[in-house]
């Protein structure tokens, strides 16, 4: 199959999946109990019939379900994600506004977890059964099993409250008025704790996966051959084992990267990080359908896009895959 055909097939598949997801999201949300107009009226402390009707008109909820669905799909096709009447702004603006903070957090966490996870996995695989292997695997298990929100709170109590090293909430120092490099440093300072907290979970996953994969690869003949040729253990690991063992990690990293745009609801909430995860959570509680659908659609699109990119990455990491295709 030529590369162009491969891409075309993937793109067509992606379009069908996206439309199916969009339809599913729309109807699933409508199945959930609760009337957004009542949520909004409740926040105002009252709501007579006229007010509730006004709100339903604003949300377009007074129209038939079929009409609402048609308007939604029509908007999607022209990349119009709708208008949040609750926030009085276009959904696309809301998503784009939150995107930089989310990408910064999840991207940093991805880099931290990939670098640390692969390194620790390799180290553990080379010292199977020894104290360092046990320490890495036990640590991985602990961070994998620990609920993220709890880890986040503990980190805040230790590093903010008792040690006073890091700020516990926010994206930057309020009212400091920093600009340029000083502002970048300030944001980086605020980023350390949420990114590390989020990264630790995936570090644990990658470390365990990399270790297993390395152990499996070490049994293959080409590794034994490499040693027999007289290569140093370091060279065998770098040139023969890691490139082959990393494929499952790439698969998982691809899936994680697809979720980058969705942000991390728990970490963003506990650290008051102004990302898309929180936008989604607030919209869910308030039944802000347009925002929910917009975020779902964007996240779905990104997951599909990163899956395609992962497939392409396979071809790059392991040329044999292209040959088989």
């Amino acid at each position, binding site marked *: 199959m030529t590369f162009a055909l491969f891409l075309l097939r993937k793109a067509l598949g992606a379009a069908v999946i996206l439309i199916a997801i969009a339809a599913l999201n729309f109807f699933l949300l409508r199945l959930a109990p609760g009337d957004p107009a009542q949520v909004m009226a409740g926040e105002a402390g009252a709501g007579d019939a006229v007010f509730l009707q006004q709100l339903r008109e604003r949300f377009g909820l007074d129209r038939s379900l079929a009409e609402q669905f048609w308007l939604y799909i029509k908007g999607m096709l022209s990349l119009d994600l709708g208008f949040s009447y609750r926030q009085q702004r276009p959904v696309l603006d809301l998503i784009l506004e*939150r995107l930089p903070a989310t990408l910064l957090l999840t991207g940093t966490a991805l880099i931290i977890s990939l670098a640390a996870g692969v390194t620790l996995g390799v180290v553990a695989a080379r010292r199977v059964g020894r104290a360092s292997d046990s320490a890495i695997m036990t640590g991985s298990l602990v961070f994998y099993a620990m609920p993220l929100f709890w880890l986040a709170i503990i980190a805040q109590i230790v590093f903010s409250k008792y040690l006073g090293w890091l700020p516990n909430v926010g994206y930057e120092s309020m009212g400091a008025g920093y600009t340029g490099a000083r502002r970048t440093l300030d944001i980086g300072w605020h980023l350390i704790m949420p990114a590390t907290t989020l990264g630790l979970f995936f570090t644990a996953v990658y470390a365990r996966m990399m270790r297993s994969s390395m152990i499996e690869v070490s049994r293959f003949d080409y590794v034994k051959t490499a040693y027999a040729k007289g290569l140093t253990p370091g060279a065998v690991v770098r040139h023969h084992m890691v490139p082959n063992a990393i494929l499952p990690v790439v698969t998982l990293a691809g899936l994680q990267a697809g979720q980058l745009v969705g942000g991390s609801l728990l970490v963003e909430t506990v650290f008051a990080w102004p990302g898309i995860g929180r936008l989604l959570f607030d919209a869910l509680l308030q039944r802000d359908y347009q925002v929910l659908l917009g975020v779902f659609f964007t996240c779905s699109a990104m997951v599909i896009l990163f899956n395609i990119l992962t497939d392409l990455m396979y071809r790059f990491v392991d040329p044999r895959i292209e040959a088989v295709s």
Partner: protein
Amino acid sequence: MTGFNKRELLKAGVAGLAAGELFFGLSPLANGSITALAQSPKRGGAVRAVVHPEPSSLMLGLVQNTPTQMVAGSIYESLLKYGHDLKPIPSLAERWEISEDGKAYTFHLKRNVKWHDGKPFTADDVVFSTDVFLRELHPRWRPVATTHVERIEKLDDFTVRYQLKNPFGPFILMFELSTTPIVPRHLYAGTDYKTNPNNNTPIGTGPFKLAEWTRGSHIKLTRNPDYHVQGLPNLDEIYWQIIPDAAARVVAYETGAVDILTGGTVENFDVAKLAKMKNTAVTGKGWEMIAPLSWLWFNHRQGLMAKKSFRQAVMYGMDRDFAKDVIWNGLARLASGPVSSKTRFYSDKVAAYGFDPAKAKALLKESGYKGEPIRLLALPYGEAWTRWAEAVKQNLTDIGMNIQLVTTDVAGYGQRLSDWDFDLAFTWLSQFGDPALGVARTYVSSNIAKGSPWNNVAGYSNPEVDRLFAEAAAANGEAARQELYTKVQQILVEDLPVAWMLELEFPTIYRSNFNNLIKTATGMNDAFQDAWKA
């Protein structure tokens, strides 16, 4: 006596005199800021306060949720404010008169007021706001304006008269900020109010202007140098920080990242811990207008709930003191009936219901209850409410009821209540200062209608109660209204249409070097006009 009041005894004498009001909780003096109290107000400085959840909009004429009120309360103003005793005090109106027949309210407006964009504020703005904009859009003003107001007229550029169809006792309470925020006519007249671009850059007459709103992070307000009260405000900036997690808000206060935790933003058990911190004050004041009152709905359409003996069994079976002391950590007071003790025309001359499981069991037997499952709908407002529902389930199980706890999210809760799909259900509602505004709506039979969770969802109907509420709202004179409201409270408490639980307190926690913060019945909604930092 609540936990607050006990602490109040420790410091009432000095702090009350020095700060000009009696704080609940720990005083500035008790925590070491003696010099601050001796000083005169200082200009300058910033304050960092927590708002949760993030406001959906800052256009107070369109959105009246609590976070919007808190932030936009420094941007917009109304004609009046209200003291802790609910007596009106001047705001945009410098004085007012009420005619002897109680049907004409005349307001004389301040003359030196400017909108944030520099345009002058006049009677045209007041008439446009209350007769056009809010009459169309405001869920609490519209019914009052439609039912009771005959006409709103501009007498001159700085005088406005509200002519009522008949006397309406609580009308003077309608000029509170969240009920009648005055909006600029020159920016809204003739536009589509809901999509007007000024909704995102609100222009008011208040002491602060919107400077920046980074969604999901913070809202920054800056001092209005042209504010109509000479020399005010004192502070330069207000930062409203958005921190969604309650535990993170506590750490933020402990580390000094924020100065004020507004009411209800931390769990009850954290209030006592934070109150012990140095340079920290706690006050339960500022909720007199809202006066949150909690109760259990009975769905009178279910056979058992229609029986008074069953309702009384529930009332006697609940340990409300446990709920007050343990679940609410003392930040509450037992409710004696439908009217909060903070609300006008409250009466304590009503029957009392204590915790009496034996009596509850006897009444349950008398009601004919045979172990049928009873669904108890919990209120999804956080940990305390979940624990409270579990405690009530335990209480009622102990007297022999088969309680099934139903949990849902806010939207699902509202849906079940408006569809009358419950047996027992928790709630709390605002009193809005007067029984005609926040109490009658729960009990009058004209308010029984599917589709709203804030009306008479119990389905309780009593013609005598309907008559008394109607007469009391229209009666001219405080004494006449008090008599009628006392009578209706006695009937309701005897009849027990709902099971009243607690009057709730949502304390504000703040650094005690901030002064003049909570001075009105609406608390943090207009806290910064003359607040200052020592």
